[in-house]
């Protein structure tokens, strides 16, 4: 925490004005920590803090209760300054049981605050968490470097709801509200937002709503009236650019981006998708927008999902499919079809740890090479990558624009970190968004009134003639086609020419995208940190801090992964060193080294976790020294 002012506010309680605070809510999968974290986040956002969140949960819906495998965490960094990451370490750890403490203690700052539910530290829970018999970290002095608040949250919740008429199970389930109320008190945040949320959520179950609100207030009062807590914190609203904001997660921004793409292009949107973590939320969210020219189709498998999207695109819609790594592998053959058909298609891969089932709920950027080269035959495709939760919106729009304006499938990469994480978003209005230009063929374009489906324009893209258009009947397919007519052709020279034409069409997109420029730092110098995707926040924070400390360092961040911006090679050659941090084993650095012959250095992390700012700063300093 970065504190600014301290003042005594009576009752022996000190109010500390803090610039930013990181809280980690941690508990069993059933303890409601994701909801607690989300409510705290939304409240902080609503009252003007900048923030970044990092939900982290196990792949199992209900892992064995009380074990370290079942720990579910939600981290939020909120501040009165600009926040780009969920924070390397936390100031406050809420540990609902012994397992949560065990898993998340290592990243609590020295001197940090621990709030525990002592009911989660009984003999059984200690045993399940793997503490040796007779050892209780709350009692053995091992936490003396921290400020520990031991509260029997379960007992207080039960007492608070005695006589409420609710069953023991429902009462126990409310205990996260006690913690949330206490934290609202501790961090001087109002309860109204959550009270409204509870009333809306349980509009038809008034007894449950009342119980939750009562427990929430009990938590607040517990902080206010007992003298256990001597310190409260206040984080002033952030001085963000003027405008209207909302809080948004990456998957939500992706869904809204698709709705916007449909409206801006005037095309009906058709999503073919199959449930997969962490992509399913896009399907869930988009299926709520059916009145906005959107159709969603939960297909029987990943292959059917992309094929249905291809069918929709062929029919003159904006076909989209959303998935994650293993699903992407299944879609590959169909993606080859879409490539040779040369029709618009959006393939959104919300990356997770792989290969195979890998780490379904953890993040990784390891599908870049798959996006670049993961097709049979020569089949380059445009690739764009989102750099933050809100940036998913812009990236999806960009992907849609390239797809329909250049008649090609586009791969859009996000990852679990930004898909589930959220941040305040100064959302645009419709009139601030550029239209997406769509031209359907309506007239013959060949000699004698014939239609040439593979006749190319200045972008090298072919006409889009949708079924139902009179006089333009034509057949397309996966077999190699003759130039212009699109008829099946096995001619050797024609295949080579078509292969090169398809590649040149993708390469030509570089003429229509922005040039690369540093996000921070100078455009020549000692070291450029080149990033892509979700590493943006951590790199931005690290580089800005080092710039303030006087180091010669710059940050360049890529959205267009294929083709790269035209000046990228030239820009990179203006630095003595290029460092490429990636949550993979160096995939972008291989591409950059191969294409530009720059001695780029890779900083690799494949732990299912995003980079911390300090990891990046340490590496940058190592190179600079």
């Amino acid at each position, binding site marked *: 925490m970065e504190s600014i002012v301290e003042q005594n506010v009576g009752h022996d309680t000190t109010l500390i004005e803090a610039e930013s605070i990181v809280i980690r809510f941690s508990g069993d999968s059933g303890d409601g920590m994701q909801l607690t974290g989300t409510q705290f986040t939304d409240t902080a956002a609503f009252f003007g803090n900048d923030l970044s969140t990092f939900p982290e949960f196990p792949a199992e819906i209900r892992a064995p209760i009380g074990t370290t495998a079942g720990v579910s965490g939600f981290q939020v960094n909120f501040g009165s300054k600009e926040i780009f990451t969920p924070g390397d370490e936390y100031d406050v750890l809420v540990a609902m049981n012994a397992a949560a403490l065990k898993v998340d203690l290592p990243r609590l700052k020295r001197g940090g605050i621990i709030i525990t539910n002592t009911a989660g530290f009984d003999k059984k829970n200690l045993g399940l968490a793997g503490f040796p018999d007779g050892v209780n970290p709350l009692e053995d002095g091992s936490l003396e470097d921290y400020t520990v608040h031991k509260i029997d949250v379960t007992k207080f919740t039960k007492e608070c709801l005695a006589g409420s008429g609710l069953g023991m199970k429902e009462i126990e389930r409310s205990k996260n509200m006690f913690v949330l109320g206490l934290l609202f008190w501790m961090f001087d945040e109002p309860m109204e937002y959550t009270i409204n949320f509870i009333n809306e959520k349980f509009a038809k179950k008034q007894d449950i709503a009342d119980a939750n609100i009562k427990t929430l207030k009990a938590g607040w009062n517990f902080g206010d009236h007992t003298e256990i807590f001597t310190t409260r914190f206040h984080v002033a609203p952030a001085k963000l650019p003027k405008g209207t*904001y909302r809080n948004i997660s990456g998957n939500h921004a992706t869904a809204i981006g698709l709705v916007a793409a449909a409206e801006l292009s005037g095309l009906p949107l058709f999503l073919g998708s199959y449930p997969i973590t962490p992509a399913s939320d896009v399907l869930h969210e988009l299926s709520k927008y059916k009145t906005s020219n959107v159709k969603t189709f939960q297909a029987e498998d990943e292959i059917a999902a992309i*094929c249905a999207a291809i069918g929709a695109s062929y*029919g003159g819609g904006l076909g989209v499919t959303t998935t994650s790594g293993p699903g992407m592998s299944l879609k590959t053959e169909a993606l080859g079809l879409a490539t040779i058909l040369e029709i618009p298609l959006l393939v959104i891969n919300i990356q997770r740890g792989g290969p195979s089932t890998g780490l379904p709920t953890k993040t990784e950027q390891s599908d870049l090479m798959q996006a670049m080269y993961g097709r049979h035959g020569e089949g380059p495709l445009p690739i764009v990558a989102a750099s933050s939760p809100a940036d998913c919106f812009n990236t999806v729009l960009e992907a849609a624009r390239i797809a329909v304006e250049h008649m090609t499938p586009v791969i859009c990469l996000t990852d679990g970190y930004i898909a589930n994480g959220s941040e305040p978003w100064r959302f645009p209005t419709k009139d601030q968004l550029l239209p997406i230009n769509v031209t359907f063929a309506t007239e013959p374009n060949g000699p004698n009134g014939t239609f040439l489906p593979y006749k190319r324009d200045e972008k090298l893209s072919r006409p889009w003639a949708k079924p139902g258009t009179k006089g333009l009947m034509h057949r397309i*397919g996966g077999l190699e086609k003759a130039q212009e007519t699109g008829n*099946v052709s096995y001619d050797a020279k024609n295949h080579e020419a078509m292969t090169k034409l398809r590649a040149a069409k993708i390469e030509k997109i570089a003429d229509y995208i922005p040039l690369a420029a540093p996000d921070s730092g100078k455009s020549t110098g000692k070291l450029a940190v080149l990033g892509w995707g979700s590493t943006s926040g951590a790199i931005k924070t690290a580089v800005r801090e080092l710039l303030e400390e006087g180091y010669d360092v710059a940050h360049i961040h890529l959205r267009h992964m294929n083709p790269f911006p035209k000046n990228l090679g030239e820009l990179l050659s203006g630095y003595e060193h290029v460092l490429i941090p990636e949550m993979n084993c160096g995939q972008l650095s291989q591409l950059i080294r191969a294409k530009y012959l720059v001695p780029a250095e890779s900083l690799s992390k494949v732990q299912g976790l995003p980079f911390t700012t300090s990891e990046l700063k340490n590496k940058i300093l190592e190179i600079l020294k």
Partner: protein
Amino acid sequence: MTTIIEQEAAPKLTAKDFASNQEVKWCPGCGDYSILKQVQTVFPDFGIPKEDIVFISGIGCAARFTYYMDTYGMHSIHGRAAAIASGLKGLNPKLSVWVVSGDGDAFSIGGNHFIHLMRKNFDLNYLVFNNQIYGLTKGQYSPTSEKGKVAKSTPYGSVEEPFNPSELALGAKCSFVSRSLDRDPKHMQMVLKRAHEHKGTSFVEIYQNCPVFNDGTFFAFSEKETKQEQSIYLEHGKPLLFSNGTKGIKLDGTRPVIVNLNENGNSASDLWIHDEHDKTKAHIIAGFFDTEYDGVHFPRPFGVIYSEDRPTCEDGMEQQIAELTARKGKPSLDKILSGDKTWTIL
């Protein structure tokens, strides 16, 4: 009904109008030629403008069909035509969509899409040219090849049971199950028309001779020496008769029995009357394949085995959108961008 009036005003198309300019490249004598001819023959009667017709095919000999029709068409990838057609029909319900597939394409690599298409019931037509062999890959046994089939990949005979496509389709809740064969043009035309008229997924299995890799496999059902004994032609509301009307099938409870009408005491009025809409009986008829009753083998059924009116998937999608729009209206993009909870920094 305005569309019909407009169509009548236009000059009626002919079979030739549906032939594309591409050379047909199936092997000489292939049953596919007959199917192409029957399709091109009946299409003018449907009165659909050519631009509203789309053929989607997968991979295999049958899949080349798409190139030979002067309509819109996509020759896609192996087994996936059903999924592509679902997306196309889902997006634009006005199109007349025809899937052309083979036994390997539909029941092996495309098996999952096949069953789910039947269940979802998009209003499209699914033609399977069943030749009980992989032709384009030069002669491996297929999921409809009979047990013991000696083929390239089974030199000692296949050890697997084949699918009975009609039972498979019925089990997957198909709303229109039918069978025809390449060597009976009139019958095929009738079935194609029925498939077109049916609203929902119409499954048409067409026995198709592969003269190169599986010649004569269906001759028992098509050649005059055996046809009368081995096949039975179904007509809704008519008794189940075969063998030139000398034999029939009656039901003893749920057990079918073959009766000889020339023998004493047997009358046509006791026979089973075919009811396309009776699913229980459709299952029994579909079982006239490899199911034997009391050691008796039954003739193979041709025609419409089952048909049922039930809502289509694309109509469901459209209705839901219409109802939601009527109830909630269409939010502006600005409203969607802002969501419900915003704050302003001045």
